[in-house]
């Protein structure tokens, strides 16, 4: 602790001891020790000073709340009934003490501002990067892109997946819930397969995939919440989840997102796996879950 901190620490301790003495006698000793213990936990001169000033205010409140009955009891016990009213309205700090505290506070503020102003250039010097001299040099030639060694491994085409197996949209009915699972749009070019490429078909919800309606949160139905969440899943060649699904794009409702995740979890084993040249492979892909209420 440097001299500056010691000075602030001393002021804070004095303020606390003064404040504790002004609390009702039943609390005076206890609060003094308690506040000094809690002061020791505070690090930094400002935090300590703020804490001490807070204790001064606490004294005012405690004296106001707990002081009057104690004084009244003392007055009654000693027969000084005339002193009760005056004692009850006595402020915990005299006007003179408050003025002194305000003046001390203002002085501390000015000293801190001046200290900060003096320290600022040094701090800036340490924070700013060293000066760098810049001169113009000819632009180097752009690097030549490397030629692909094996085109078959470098080009993977994404094609639109076939329509999901089995009906996913329930038949419309009055006041019905409509939930729908769709694959997210594929990324990458589409078109006729090029020679020497791997044709990759992204997976999606397959046969026996649970109905979205069953996962429409009841609270969302009550609140008429609708939306579409994009869920990212990693599925192995057998259509089972390899890890927990995650929300790629929120529906805007945490409840609906939670429902979409539960649906994605429940669908493990019923995903249509991604295929490369017809062979099922493990892959991660997104799909959309739409929660919609129909009137």
């Amino acid at each position: 602790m440097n001299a500056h901190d010691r000075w602030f620490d001393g002021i804070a301790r004095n303020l606390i001891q003064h404040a504790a003495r002004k609390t009702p006698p039943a609390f005076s000793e206890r609060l003094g020790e308690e506040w000094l213990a809690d002061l020791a936990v505070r690090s930094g001169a400002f935090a300590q000073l703020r804490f001490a000033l807070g204790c001064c205010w606490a004294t005012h409140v405690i004296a106001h709340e707990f002081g009057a009955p104690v004084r009244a009891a003392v007055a009654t016990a000693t027969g000084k009934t005339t002193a009760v009213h005056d004692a009850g309205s006595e402020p915990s700090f005299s006007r003179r003490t408050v003025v002194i505290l305000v003046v001390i506070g203002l002085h501390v503020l000015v000293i801190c501002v001046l200290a900060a102003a003096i320290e600022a250039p040094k701090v800036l010097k340490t924070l700013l990067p060293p000066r760098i001299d810049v001169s113009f040099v000819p632009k180097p030639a752009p690097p030549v892109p490397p030629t692909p060694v094996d085109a078959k491994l470098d080009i993977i085409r994404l094609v639109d997946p076939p329509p999901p197996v089995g009906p996913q949209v329930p038949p419309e009915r009055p006041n019905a819930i409509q939930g729908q699972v769709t694959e997210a749009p594929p990324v990458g070019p589409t078109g006729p397969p090029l020679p020497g490429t791997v044709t990759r078909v992204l997976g999606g919800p397959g046969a026996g995939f649970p109905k979205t309606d069953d996962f429409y949160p009841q609270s969302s139905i009550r609140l008429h919440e609708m939306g579409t969440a994009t869920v990212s899943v990693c599925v192995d060649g057998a259509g089972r989840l390899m890890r927990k699904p995650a929300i790629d794009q929120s529906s805007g409702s945490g409840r609906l997102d939670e429902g979409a995740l539960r649906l994605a979890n429940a669908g493990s084993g019923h995903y249509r796996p991604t295929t490369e040249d017809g062979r099922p492979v493990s892959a991660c892909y997104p799909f959309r879950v739409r929660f919609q209420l129909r009137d």
Partner: protein
Amino acid sequence: MSFQTLKVLEAFLENPGDELSGADVHKRSGIASGTLYPILLRLESAGWFVSRWEAIDPASVGRPRRRLYRLTRSGLAHASGVFASFGRGIPV
């Protein structure tokens, strides 16, 4: 009940068995000392809290003893009731 009192209670309800000093409550709730200590005394005098001195030897540890506060059984019941009345913990 004031917002600050609720914050103090919330700090204790994080783990109702915990004994917290004023500094601990300040860390959890962010309430300044001027407001915090009157609330602690108020709740203690109402029987919601009990307090005791930390069982250390200040001379050997090199710091003053802390005053530790703990929710009483009735304090816990009251505090839980207050928060339940705001709908906290009820699934939507």
